[in-house]
């Protein structure tokens, strides 16, 4: 990689080009020249310079036009105009158009060197500002993820050791103490989950994800979601039965957040299910939409509570094992699904179970992916446990 500063000089007088090139000899710059605007612009696009000198008065396309096009191709390139008639007014006009500085003809080598150095310094600052801004934005956007990692790491280490202690002491501890240990594990687990959801909600606007939408296979999203909740299901001996229609068209979306939405829904189904039962996950196409139904035979939701389940901080009644949520999971889920142009609804009967239905628009103009079904491994399709 050539790390030298790159300079393009565009002027119809060859003598100017020659002398400028000569003045800059001995500096570690890459200098390219052109005698008219059109050639100059081609050069600019090719070598992507740091600094461009443009003569304002040239035959062919004007210096102002060149300035405009350089700006349009990359606004971070620093431009300096060379003005033949030493009129301040045209230089001012050029600077209004975004030129950084001007060089009145005739100029001394010293003046040209000085303005070159000033221009390159400006370029360095522009690039540095952009880099800093990007870093700041990244930090802001990823704040939740970073903080969540910092908070979760020590808690995970504690929990891991509690798991070991509980196992090592299971034979020796009296029941009361064993229960205390179990409660500690449970509360720590809640805290870990709370950190996850809370920080997720405070992180960057979910609408931002729309910028990076790509075709996403629903089957692979569901498989990942199921994989992520499998541990919880295994613990309660709940069977996850997944059936995904073959040749489903992809949806246009963000795989990560879509997976998160389904983790919330399927995770809820498991949470509110009785042990030794099953949860079904079914995906099929209907018209231009992909419908996914997640059904459980668990505690269900009272009809008076149904309208509120997708609201922030709404918490359902505890699950059969006393499991409580943060009250945010479904609210986040709804936001994610709606950001994808879809909808999520629920039907439920108290004591009989709930069915969540997610409808996502199929990606326009994209054919069904061949072998979509193969994205779901056999153990998920058959609904077997791991």
């Amino acid at each position, binding site marked *: 990689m050539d790390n030298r500063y790159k300079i393009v000089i565009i002027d119809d007088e060859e003598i100017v080009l020659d002398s400028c090139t000569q003045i800059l000899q001995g500096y570690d710059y890459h200098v390219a020249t052109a005698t008219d605007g059109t050639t100059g612009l081609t050069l600019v696009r090719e070598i992507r310079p740091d600094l461009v000198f443009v003569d304002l008065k040239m035959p062919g396309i004007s210096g102002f036009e060149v300035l405009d096009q350089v700006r349009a191709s990359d606004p971070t390139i620093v431009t300096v105009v060379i003005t033949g008639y030493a009129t301040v007014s045209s230089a001012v006009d050029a600077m209004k158009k975004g030129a950084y500085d001007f060089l009145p003809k005739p100029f001394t080598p010293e003046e040209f060197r000085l303005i070159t150095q000033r221009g390159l310094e400006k370029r360095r600052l522009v690039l540095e500002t952009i880099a800093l801004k990007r870093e700041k934005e*990244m930090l802001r*956007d*990823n704040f939740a*993820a*970073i903080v*969540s*990692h910092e908070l*979760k*790491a*020590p808690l*995970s*280490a*504690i*929990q*891991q*050791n509690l*798991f*070991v202690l509980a*196992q*090592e002491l299971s034979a020796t501890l009296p029941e009361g103490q064993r229960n205390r240990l179990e409660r500690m594990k449970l509360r720590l687990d809640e805290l*870990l989950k709370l950190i*996850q959801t809370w920080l997720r909600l405070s*992180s*960057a606007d979910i609408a931002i994800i729309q910028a990076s939408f790509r075709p996403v296979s629903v089957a692979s999203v569901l498989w*990942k979601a199921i*994989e*992520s909740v499998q*541990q919880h299901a*295994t*613990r309660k001996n709940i069977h996850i039965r997944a059936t995904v229609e073959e040749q489903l068209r992809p949806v246009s979306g963000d*795989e*990560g*957040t879509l*997976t*998160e939405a389904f*983790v919330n829904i399927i995770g809820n189904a498991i949470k509110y299910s009785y042990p030794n039962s099953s949860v079904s996950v079914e995906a099929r196409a209907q018209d231009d939409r992909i419908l996914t139904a997640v059904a459980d035979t668990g505690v269900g939701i009272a009809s008076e509570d149904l309208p509120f389940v997708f609201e922030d901080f709404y918490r359902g009644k505890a699950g059969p094992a006393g499991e409580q949520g943060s009250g945010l999971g479904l609210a986040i889920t709804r936001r994610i699904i709606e950001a994808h142009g879809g909808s999520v609804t629920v039907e439920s009967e108290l004591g009989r179970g709930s069915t969540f239905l997610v409808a996502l628009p199929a990606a326009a103009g994209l054919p069904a992916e061949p072998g979509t079904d193969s994205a779901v491994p056999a153990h998920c399709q058959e609904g077997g446990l*791991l």
Partner: protein
Amino acid sequence: MSPQRRLLILDDDPDFVEGIRAILESAGYAVDAAYNPKAGFEALKARPYDLLLLDIMMGRGAEGVMIARKMRKDPKLSQIPVLIITGIREQIAFLFPGQPVHPHFLPVDELVEKPVEPQFLLDKVSALLQAAERRKAQAS
């Protein structure tokens, strides 16, 4: 009786490593630990391991990912099953803009979340070891 299996844990959190080590040792595995990517990679090259338990978020970022990628390129190391144990969920892909964290770096990968329940961990470990054994038998 099959010979004792030797596992390597690569994780920068010593407390977490101890929690995992105790579970694995109680199940009869020989366990070594390395606490940074460099030491981990050296350990992998120094002696043959039957399985690597790998943390993703180490050091300056997702250095576990680098280790997995390096292993895939090495013909010998690419045969070692890798069980990723991570505190970050895969769906937090925005942690690495433009570079989603995907668990399937290697054909033999599995991913579990921290903290991991002892029995679940042991099941995963033995499943991976058995799968590796079958592959080896098929190859020869």
